[in-house]
């Protein structure tokens, strides 16, 4: 093996092009030859350094330079928040959050992406125009906004054909749709079914064998069995309401009702609801019918529910946290007011654990982070403030009987077991670290600016 051959294998490997055989060949050389190992380490070290130098530096600056107008917290807290965002590597760079210029009236525009790539490995970018034709996504999530207001989120791998402003064909994969009144009649066709929207939010998935699942989160849709030619007149429409799921398969004579299962859509649906991504033990759930947060006791996850969307409160709303930094307990009279006239969407984060196992009082930490598509304008956790905002943002007819504010570590307290909540410098990310304790609920209401 010459040094050229070794160099070729190392280059292939670092470029991500090595075949299994090449990786195995490189492995044999490195196992046998100490000098080769040192050379490989030097090459990897150089490559790592170039990646950091040319790729990440810009992004780091854009986070760190974003200084909030009124920063009341210690700079190191702010720096940590910024760093956590960097550490955790929020998949969406600042550049992606800035829509680039759009061309004259395309059928649809890409309004959001989360790690979204085409099968050719080219990334989808925000602001990209989508005209009639096939959209193939290999991985990640991409949101398409149609001029008529319809919004689709596609989760890779998937193939979606855009026909016109009111019709798409899902060949494979998962799509969730939010259809406002302006786009009622929007149709998603698959090889086995036709889904006609009647003003709603729903998800459609197409498996490799063509089996189509339709799950309605809100409102209602009409589902028809498609024959070889999609003609609405040949089959009777099946009305599917929120909280219902149906399935159509290639050889099924009719649409079958199946149990409601929003799980397959839990990745794509949050994006439609303004959540870019969750990591760690944060789980986004779609409320569905007969929703009650009390139904979501979960010992492993902080559960996130969308509450009221696009709403401008008339009365002043008091909030616990406005500026990036760590939440510290303050007195009621020191609370800040949400900026008046702001249109917001609210989300509830909840940790509601149940006593489990032999040690029902054991306390564990549950950690995670959530990044919203739009800036967070207020965070509420004090029980009194949660109660006050309940009427405005909360689910109707839901009452909580326990205290539910989180307990941050008081300054100077060194005992273990406190909660931590950090609003990161990007103003879109919350880093949450909660001690789980049965019989005690932790809730955080997050107010995010609407478009």
């Amino acid at each position, binding site marked *: 093996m010459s040094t050229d051959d070794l*160099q070729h294998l190392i*280059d292939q*490997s*670092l*470029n*991500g092009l*090595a075949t*299994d*055989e090449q*990786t*195995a060949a490189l*492995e044999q050389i*490195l*196992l046998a030859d100490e000098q080769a*190992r*040192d050379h*490989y*380490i*030097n*090459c*990897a*070290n*150089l*490559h*790592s*350094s*170039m*990646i*950091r*130098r*040319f*790729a*990440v530096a*810009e*992004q780091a600056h854009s986070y760190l330079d974003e200084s909030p107008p009124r920063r009341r917290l210690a700079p*190191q*807290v702010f*720096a*940590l928040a910024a*760093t*956590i965002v960097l*550490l*955790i*590597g929020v998949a969406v*760079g600042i*550049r*992606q959050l800035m829509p680039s210029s759009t061309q004259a009236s395309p059928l649809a525009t890409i309004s959001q992406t989360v790690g979204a790539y085409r099968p*050719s*490995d*080219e*990334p989808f970018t925000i602001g990209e125009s989508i005209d009639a034709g096939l959209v193939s996504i290999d991985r990640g999530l991409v949101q398409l906004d149609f001029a008529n207001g319809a919004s689709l989120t596609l989760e890779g791998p998937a193939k979606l054909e855009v026909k016109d402003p009111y019709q798409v064909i899902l060949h494979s994969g998962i799509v969730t749709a939010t259809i406002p009144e302006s786009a009622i009649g929007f149709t998603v066709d698959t090889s086995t079914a036709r889904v006609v929207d009647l003003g709603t939010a729903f998800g459609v998935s197409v498996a490799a064998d063509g089996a189509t699942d339709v799950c309605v989160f809100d409102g209602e849709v009409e589902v028809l069995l498609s024959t070889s030619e999609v003609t609405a007149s040949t089959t009777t429409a099946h009305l599917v309401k929120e909280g219902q799921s149906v399935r159509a398969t290639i050889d099924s004579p009719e649409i079958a009702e199946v149990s409601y299962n929003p799980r397959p859509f839990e990745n794509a649906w949050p994006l439609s609801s303004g959540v870019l991504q969750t990591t*760690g033990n944060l789980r986004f759930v779609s409320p569905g019918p007969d929703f009650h947060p009390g139904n979501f006791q979960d010992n492993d996850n902080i559960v996130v529910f969308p509450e009221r969307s696009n709403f401008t409160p008339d009365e002043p709303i008091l909030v616990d946290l406005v500026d990036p930094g*760590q939440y510290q307990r303050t007195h009621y009279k020191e609370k800040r007011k949400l900026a008046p006239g702001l249109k917001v969407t609210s989300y509830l984060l909840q940790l509601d654990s149940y006593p489990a196992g032999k040690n029902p009082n054991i306390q564990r*930490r549950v*950690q995670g982070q959530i990044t919203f598509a739009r800036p967070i304008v207020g965070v509420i956790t004090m029980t009194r403030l949660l109660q006050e905002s309940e009427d405005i943002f909360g689910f109707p007819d839901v009452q909580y009987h326990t205290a539910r504010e989180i307990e941050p*570590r008081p*300054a*100077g307290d*060194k005992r273990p077991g406190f909660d*931590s909540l950090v609003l990161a410098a990007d103003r879109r990310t919350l880093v949450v670290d909660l001690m789980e304790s049965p019989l005690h609920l932790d809730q955080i209401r997050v107010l995010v600016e609407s478009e």
Partner: protein
Amino acid sequence: MTDPSLDDSSRHEAFVALYVRHEAAVFSFVLTMVSQSADAEDIVQRASITMWRCFDQFQPGTNFRAWAFQIAKNEALNHLSKVKRDRHVFSEKLINLLADRAEERADDLDTRRRALDLCVEKLTTDDRSMVEGCYAEGSSIRAFAKRAGESENKIYKRLNRVRGGLLKCIEFQLGLEASR
């Protein structure tokens, strides 16, 4: 245990200061084990969260880099055990050899990364813009080749050549420093 006299914000500050100083070393260390940058980014990201969670267990005054490497190595091994079903990855035996050696040479590798700054300055404008295009966040060699109107293969070859040159330049710089 971290110094109990530290309050929470001082702990944050201490962690951030240490992590920022050693992030490049951790990334290089992980990339050495897994070769592929996307994998390395994922692993470093997970490792950094683990480090922060376990920061209570870090003994102040001891070697943070060594502690961070240990956590990063565990994350890398976890990751490799998952992906090895889909593709060939380095064996645990080789990972151990590489990790031990990279840790042994950590100071030397730090120096080499610093020397890169000088060498990058010496690149021709063309080479530099190619390197920037290929390594830019969210960019890919394929996309860059398309923009530049060249074949991917050609760009890879140029990139390999430029990296080879940079490696020689770094050796030269280190030689200069050693002889001073």
